[in-house]
């Protein structure tokens, strides 16, 4: 399908995505409830750091960190792996393959359409964050502030691509979703979802630094909460872009292999 044609279809795909988000109210609520882990961690760590800072993190640093984590997770979360595996399992993937639009575009449109609704949840948290933490635990540098949005977009793309790739595994194995538990375990540890990466044991922190997980969550949080030199900013954004391109390429490649297998064995 040509680019011009995809662009013409996009507004309708986004509109339908919004309609779907609104229709799945229950699911939406459940999703929000399942992303409250940062709040639990926030409670835990602020009480630890109540008397004295813990490894350089004061109580208000933890508040800023976990509220920022909640924002990033809400804006970048993806459920595409479940969608793909369900469609393969139920056979509706066949119908999708007969439409002249790349399924990745169609799934992505549905995800992007949900972002405004997720923002409704995120905005009040952002306000609480600003009021409670103040400038001391947050970034004030204009360039760094400006880069938060592209960094969030890249984090979204990496998360979407990784979960898209996991979803395509359902083309090859029947219970691909078992892999999601493994993914979520690694993600929680290496992305900074459970605790800030500097608090991890040195060896694990090193792995985290070179893994794509950091760029799915920790990097935008770092941009919001930790002052950085321009050089470090540039490096992080360049690395994040690299991961976005790599994971997107991986997802598309696995998709092609998966569809070829689907054509060979049926679904």
């Amino acid at each position: 399908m040509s680019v011009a044609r995809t662009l013409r279809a996009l507004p309708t795909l986004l509109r339908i995505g919004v309609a779907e988000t609104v229709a799945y109210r229950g699911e939406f609520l459940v999703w929000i409830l399942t992303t409250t882990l940062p709040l639990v961690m926030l409670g835990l760590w602020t009480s630890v750091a109540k008397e004295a800072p813990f490894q350089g993190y004061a109580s208000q640093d933890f508040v800023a960190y976990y509220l920022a984590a909640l924002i990033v997770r809400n804006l970048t979360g993806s459920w595409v792996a479940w969608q793909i595996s369900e469609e393969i399992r139920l056979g509706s993937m066949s119908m999708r393959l007969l439409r002249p639009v790349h399924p990745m575009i169609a799934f992505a449109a549905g995800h992007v359409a949900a972002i405004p609704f997720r923002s409704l949840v995120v905005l009040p948290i952002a306000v609480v964050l600003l009021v409670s933490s103040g400038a001391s635990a947050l970034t004030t540098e204009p360039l760094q502030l400006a880069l938060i949005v592209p960094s969030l977009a890249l984090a979204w793309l990496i998360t979407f691509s990784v979960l898209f790739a996991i979803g395509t595994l359902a083309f090859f194995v029947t219970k691909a979703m078992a892999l999601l538990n493994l993914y979520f375990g690694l993600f929680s540890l290496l992305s900074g979802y459970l605790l800030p990466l500097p608090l991890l044991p040195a060896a694990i922190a090193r792995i985290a630094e070179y893994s794509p997980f950091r760029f799915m969550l920790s990097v935008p949080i770092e941009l919001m909460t930790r002052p950085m030199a321009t050089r470090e900013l540039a490096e992080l954004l360049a690395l994040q872009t690299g991961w976005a391109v790599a994971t997107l390429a991986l997802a598309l490649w696995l998709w092609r292999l998966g569809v070829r297998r689907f054509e060979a064995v049926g679904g």
Partner: protein
Amino acid sequence: MIRARELVKHFRVHKRPPGFAAAMKSLVRRHYEGVKAIDGVSFEIQRGERVGFLGPNGAGKTTTLKVLAGLLHPTSGEVEVEGHTPYKRQTAFLEKITLVMGQKSQLIWDLPPSETYAMNRAIFDVPHAEFTKTLDELTQLLDLAPLLDKPTRQLSLGERMKCELAAALLHRPTTLFLDEPTIGLDVAMQLAIRDFIRSYNQRHDATVLLTSHYMDDVVALCPRIIVIDSGTLIHDGDLRGLIKAMDPDKRVSFTLTSGVTDAQLAAVGTVLAREGQRITLKVPEREIATAVGHLLGTLETTDLAIEDPPLEEILRVMFGRSREAKAEAKDAR
């Protein structure tokens, strides 16, 4: 136009005997077996034809439709639909065809069908004016007006099927692959769908390839039938011709209004069924006039009907013969 030449599709399926030990063993070593879903099928279908595709369960009907629609890559052989190689799934090809599977849905489950239609319009890049015109036509033909704005999940099976058909036809495809489009529907709904398919075929000169478990669908819609069994083609041709060739005798059913002896009935034809006063006889075609004259004149009968033998019966005989022939061929080897 649809053309399949020496089409073959083999699958590899994982097999294991029942039981815990076998389950554990299959973790380490898997035993695969080749299944010949389609085994060298050739046919040609011209633009505008309505063709019934028949065969017992597992004969390879759905696999063939999926190959023709581009969802499956054939193992070997050639296939061409409207000048395209289906499995490449080029946009120009996808715009010309549609596949309706009675057991699978393309409607968005929690939204009304009108939303799926809007999405298909955008994806297939149908101009707004043309879309409105087609949707109006489909709404009228399928009586969709009360259904368009109800969430799909609240529709009955029959209502959903009508909406599925409309979703599949909004881009005005000229080749329709219909796999069990009337499955699970009541008789009235079956008739409505059947009428609709015929009228779409006539209005748009569309090619229709239909599979159905309901022989009435096939008899009513398809002048030509292709029969496959175990992946091979066992008949391709005119439906009436097939019936005549397989069983030229007619079925004469009537209700007796007074007593009749078996000998009296045997003089008219072979008794196939006798349920109370309702009797069905098998009568050679050339003796029909005499038989009917006798039944109406000498014996006291009402509700007399003359029909072709049911297609189910013909197919049962055909599949039996095809299996015997295969078994013989195997023995001979």
